[in-house]
């Protein structure tokens, strides 16, 4: 009886009646077609991309400091309070010392700074270490941070302006020289006389400048992200 009851209830329940959808105008249809076409072309280009780095690279690399050395695994401190465990087979592992000579895993000590290379395994987070390169401490450089903010003051006597950063809640004195490139993000050259208060400046510190301090920076390149070309004054 149960199936009979179920069938009667199911048949008795009203089925949803599809509401008539208004036909989109032809321009909208055209737009949808265009968007779909663009997406399809994008996907095809991605699939055809000759650059092997466009797909997930099976080769991994980490830079860090050795914290544990076991007979079959190595643990690295890779910074930002993160550690990474790498499995290895001693017979397949190539070890290079900081003078670029072949070495042995027994020569690697806890605290050594190393670059590791190997293969990602099928299980996410599993790595097979194949090459271990010891490097001199501090020899691997990191880029200097950019200083990004709003120009709040411009010196009329020296090549200097004040940049106020919202994120750091700090003001910086930015020095620029004849060699400093001042550009729009698209690469258009901007004269220093075109710098104005209120512009958003992205300052690339000069990596060779020795007089950079916490609040005073010599710029190698300055990008004005909201630069707009002044419209020519109409002649009477």
């Amino acid at each position, binding site marked *: 009886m149960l199936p009979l009851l179920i069938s009667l209830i199911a048949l008795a329940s009203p089925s949803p009646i599809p509401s008539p959808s208004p036909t989109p105008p032809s321009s909208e249809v055209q737009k949808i077609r265009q968007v779909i076409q663009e997406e399809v072309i994008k996907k095809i280009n991605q699939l055809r991309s000759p650059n092997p780095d466009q797909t997930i690279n099976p080769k991994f690399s980490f*830079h860090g400091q050795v914290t544990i050395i076991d007979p079959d695994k190595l643990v690295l401190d890779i910074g930002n309070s993160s550690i990474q465990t790498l499995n290895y087979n001693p017979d397949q592992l190539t070890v290079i010392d900081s003078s670029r000579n072949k070495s042995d895993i027994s020569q690697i000590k806890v605290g050594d700074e190393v670059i590791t290379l190997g293969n990602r395994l099928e299980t996410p987070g599993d790595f097979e270490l194949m090459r271990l390169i010891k490097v001199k401490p501090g020899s691997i450089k990191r880029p200097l941070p950019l200083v990004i903010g709003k120009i709040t003051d411009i010196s009329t006597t020296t090549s200097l302006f004040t940049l106020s950063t919202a994120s750091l809640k700090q003001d910086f004195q930015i020095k620029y020289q004849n060699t400093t490139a001042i550009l729009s993000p698209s*690469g258009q050259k901007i004269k220093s006389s075109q710098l104005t208060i209120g512009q958003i400046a992205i300052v690339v510190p000069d990596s060779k400048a020795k007089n950079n301090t916490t609040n005073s920076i010599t710029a190698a390149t300055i990008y004005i992200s909201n630069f707009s070309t002044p419209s020519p004054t109409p002649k009477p």
Partner: protein
Amino acid sequence: MSKELVLALILGLMVGFGATGTFYALQHRPASTNPPVTTDLSSANPSPTSDNPSGLTNQNLDHQITIKITSPANNSAVSTAKITISGETQPQYTLVLVSTTNPNQPVTTQSDTSGQFSLQASLESGANYLDLYSIDPQTGQYFQTNLYITYSTAKF
């Protein structure tokens, strides 16, 4: 005889209605109410150092600026000196890529109207740290993430 016929008819009707009803109920049941799979960005580790082969998403929670690098994966080893970094951020933001290869002249671009971007980076042999900034061109609010890539032609 007639009693057996009536019983067979009732039984047949019950089986028939039962099968039809079950089929109808299955066809018209409501769609699954399982919640969609989402990633809680607020709990995501902002550090890009943990390996994430499927891409990297960092977010500035104050300004809701995100950078998702779709290629290459962080902590990759590559065998070419030039790589393409592609990903997604806010639409029409300024992207600046700083590397130690040419620290004074970063690579810049602008994300398109859907937030997609692509940048070419030159690598030096060995370890490379790349800092990528996504900047609101109108306010200067930004978010920065970094990538570690090793360029090596060694076979392994």
